[in-house]
């Protein structure tokens, strides 16, 4: 629940403020991105996000609630058919305000308020896992959460570790290829062995976490290791 706005209304009175916010919300849903003052953008955000929540619900009652604010039926239709479904995986935070500095003329601080991009299901689970890790970290005193934290951390860290390992393996593969090209058999062999080691480690981490992202990264690492070994063998043959 957004906190009620403190301080004076925008415009000349409560009705004027309602009209201004309604016009801003209509423009935002029509164009997806509008430039306005920071004060107006901040007041618009809770209203616009409430409208999107109604759009996600999608029934006739919520459509009528939205129509009391956004009077344009075309914009409301777009809101319910395109914008609402786009944020299926997002729980709030549908808008982004970026400050763009003072306006020429009256030096009013300006901002761009825009509808954020859709969240993929995978990204949503990752952010949820991160949130779980963070909340688990807060409850370090509670014994029950200790086990939970360990698993959550493993899942979150697994993907990162495996991805990092894939990068390392790629580097090692490149090194091996370079050494092989230069005719340095020992260097190539060493680099290939490094790549293989890193790939094995990544595979272990991925198995432990059971995260599909981590497994994919581990697969990448292994592929790079194979490339490195091939390069080393080629170098041997040539010599």
């Amino acid at each position: 629940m957004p906190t009620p706005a403190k301080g004076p209304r925008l415009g000349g009175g409560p009705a004027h403020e309602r009209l201004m916010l309604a016009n801003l919300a209509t423009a935002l849903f029509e164009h997806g991105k509008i430039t306005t003052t920071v004060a107006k953008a901040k007041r618009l955000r809770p209203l616009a996000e409430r409208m999107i929540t109604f759009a996600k619900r999608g029934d006739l009652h919520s459509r009528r609630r939205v129509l009391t604010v956004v009077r344009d039926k075309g914009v409301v239709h777009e809101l319910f058919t395109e914008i609402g479904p786009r944020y299926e995986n997002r729980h709030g935070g549908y808008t982004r305000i970026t400050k763009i500095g003072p306006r020429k003329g009256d030096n009013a601080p300006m901002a761009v308020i825009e509808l954020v991009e859709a969240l993929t299901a995978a990204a949503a689970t990752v952010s949820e896992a991160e949130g779980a890790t963070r909340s688990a970290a807060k409850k370090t005193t509670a014994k029950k959460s200790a086990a939970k934290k360990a698993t959550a951390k493993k899942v979150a860290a697994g993907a990162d570790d495996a991805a990092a390992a894939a990068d390392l393996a790629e580097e090692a593969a490149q090194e091996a290829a370079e050494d092989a090209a230069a005719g340095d058999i020992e260097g190539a062999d060493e680099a290939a062995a490094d790549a293989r080691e890193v790939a094995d480690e990544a595979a272990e981490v991925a198995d432990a976490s059971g995260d599909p992202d981590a497994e994919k990264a581990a697969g990448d690492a292994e592929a790079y290791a194979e490339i490195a070994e091939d390069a080393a063998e080629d170098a041997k043959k040539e010599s």
Partner: protein
Amino acid sequence: MAVPKRKMSRSNTRSRRAQWKAVPPSLVTCKRCKERKLPHVACPTCGTYDDRAVLDV
């Protein structure tokens, strides 16, 4: 309506105005284009904030 009883002396006026001072804005370096810009504000030179294009430049 309440009105001033005495003329404000030149000295008092100038003493008051001596306190109007301009403060240099605290600036940071843009991550992307290395220009100086206001903190927490999109860079006016390259039009990005947090590596996200915000302005058309």
